Structures are given as C-alpha cells and as structure tokens.
C-alpha cells in the first residue's frame, strides 16, 4: 500500500484517467479514423477507377486506330473494285453500242440497197414502158405510115430485147 501511495495511485484519478483515455479512443475512432479511412478508401477507388479508365481509353484509341486503318483499306479496295467494274461495264456497253450501231448501219445499208434495187427495177420497168411508147411514137413519126399493129409491135419488141 505504501508503494501505491508513493506512485500516486488514487482510484479516483485512475478512474478519471480511464474515462479520459476511453473518450479519447472513442472520439478519435468514431470521428477521425473512420471518416479519414473512409475518405482515403474512396479516394483510392477514385484513383484506381481513373487509372483504369485512362487505360481503357488508350486501349480503345488503339483499337479505333486499327479499325480506322482496316476501314480505310477496305474502302480503298471497294473503290478500286467499283472503278474496275465501272470500267468493265463502260467497255461492255461501249462495245455493245458500237456493235449495235454497226448492225443497224449494216441493216440500213442492206435495206437501202434493196430499196434502191427495187426502185431501179421499177424505174427500168417504167422506162421500158415509156420507152416503148416513145419509140412507137418516134417510129410512127418517122415512118408516117402505120403498119399493122401486130407487126409493128413485134418489130419494136425485137429491137428492144436486142
């Protein structure tokens, strides 16, 4: 008991010290450690999220770049294809048009030739008819005297056919 007295141990002070320390622990725990750790955790999460987002963004950027390249290459290919096709089509059509024109032209020529031939034949016919009359008239005028019709015609026809 003497030692306790020498150390200044008084149960009232001990109790007071206990409550003081208990309050200190409680207040620091409830109002300092807890909110501070919560805050730090939230900030950590935020930073982690930010870093993750940044990584994702760069990843996406790279992907987009690759896709862009792919699309460009495809587009170029398609464009080339289209141009080639168009060229082929144009060639084909041109050839067709030329062919048709040639065909038309040849058919027109043939028709015209036939027409011409027919006309020629008709003209010849007409001419022959007219000519025979003309010759008859001429011969009549020259001879001035009519032979009998039958003989006359025979002679003329012979003359013409020769």
């Amino acid at each position, binding site marked *: 008991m003497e030692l306790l007295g020498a*150390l*200044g141990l008084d149960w*009232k002070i001990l109790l007071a*010290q206990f409550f003081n320390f208990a309050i200190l622990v409680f*207040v620091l725990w409830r*109002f300092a450690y807890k909110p501070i750790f919560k805050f730090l955790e939230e900030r950590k999460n935020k930073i982690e999220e930010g870093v993750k987002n940044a990584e994702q963004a760069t990843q996406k950027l790279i992907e987009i770049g690759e896709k862009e390249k792919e699309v460009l290459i495809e587009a170029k290919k398609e464009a080339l294809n289209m141009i080639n096709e168009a060229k082929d089509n144009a060639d084909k059509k041109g050839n067709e048009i030329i062919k048709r024109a040639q065909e038309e032209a040849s058919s027109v020529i043939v028709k015209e030739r036939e027409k011409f031939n027919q006309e020629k034949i008709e003209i010849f016919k007409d001419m022959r008819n007219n000519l025979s009359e003309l010759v008859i008239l001429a011969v009549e005028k020259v001879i001035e005297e009519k032979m009998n019709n039958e003989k006359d015609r025979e002679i003329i026809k012979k003359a013409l056919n020769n």
Partner: protein
Amino acid sequence: MDNITLASNILFSIGSFPVTNTFLWTVVASVFLMIFFVLIARRMKSVPGGAQNVVEMLLEGAYSFTESVIGPGKPARKIFPLVGTMFIFILFSNFLVYIPGQSALTVYKGGNPVPVFRAIMSDYGLVLVMTLISVITTQIVSFAVLGPFKYIGKFINLKGPLDFFLGLMDLVGEIAKVISLSFRLFGNIFAGEVLTAVILFLMPFFAPLPFMFLGLLTAVVQAFVFAVLTLVFTSMVIESSSEEVK
C-alpha cells in the same frame, strides 16, 4: 531539485477529486488531439496538403503496420483504434515535454513549489490504466476467440502436473505483462524527467542538449513499443487459437 517525486503532484482539488499536474495535461493533450484530428477529418480534401498530409501518412503507415502484424481485414480494423490511439497519444504526450519554458512554471501550495507541468507518461496511474486496458483487451479477444472453457482451461490445466504448472505460469505471465509493460513506459519517461532535471540543475547550458535528443528518441521508441506490444499480444492470442483449430 527537491520537487522530483515518484508520484505526480496535486495542483488543486475539485471537491474531493485531486487534480494532479499530469492529469491536467492529460486532459489538455486529449482535448487538443481530439480537436485536431476531428478538424482534419472534417476538412479532408482530395488533394492533401499540410497537416492532412501528415495525418494521412501517420494513419496509413500505422494501419498498414497493424495489418502486417495482425493480418489484414477485420482484426486489424478492430484493434487499430486502440493501438493507433495509444501510439498517437503517448507520442504526443512525450513530445509535450519539449515545449520550452514549461518546466519553469510552478505554483506554491502550502509553501512548497509544485511544478505545473510534468511529463504525462511519468504518471504511473495513467500508464497503469493504459496497460490494464491493453492486457484486458487481449484477454477479451482471447476469451472471444477461444470460448469460455478453453480460455479458463488455458490457465487451469488439470491434464498433468507439468500442464498445470505451465497453466499457472501463463497466469503469472499475464500479470507480469501488466508490470513489464507499464513500468517500461513509466520508467523511461520518468527517468528522462529526472535526468533532464538533474542535468539542468548541474549545467543549465548546452549540456542538456544531447540528453534531450536521447529523450526525443525515447519518446518515439517508447510510444512505438507500447502500441506494438499491445498489438503483438493480441495477434499472439489470435494466432494461438488459429493453430489450435488446425
């Protein structure tokens, strides 16, 4: 020189309650710490600066150390408020000694000079209370982890004479913990007080400086040791129970 006493000195009494100089400063230090930490916690900013940086570093370092000793997750979260506060409180109390001029303040009580300031941890009452809290906490953890029968069985083992003796030694060990833990802190700080007073009395200029630096080291080391020993006692209890489960 004649005012160095083992017990802290009574400044005045409120009713029948004697207010000692250490108790006064304990309250002052506690109130200051509470206000400081709560203010910091209230004004947390995403981009830390100044005091917030220091507090963050201190708490994060202390918490990660706690986790490394006792294991991450729930046990660390439960024990941290106690050991963290012990460390911060003891450290701050020990640093209070270095406020210049405080040792010159005395009041006269019944004709005798009584120092207004005394190193907080040189009050054996406070140290004993904190030690008891530490040891009782480990007993509560042990009780909660082991269950009532195993907990009692740890101390009173009737399997054989050797086991019985070892059980008694465990019991003695728990009491020895109280004494060793409390007197380590009290002895170091009180010795520092006495030494500083003696050196100041013998050679007031320059000579106390190396001792003050040593005292600074003691202040940090003792705060650390007290908190860590509490932590280690608790972790030992948890580990021994997990070994038994295996």
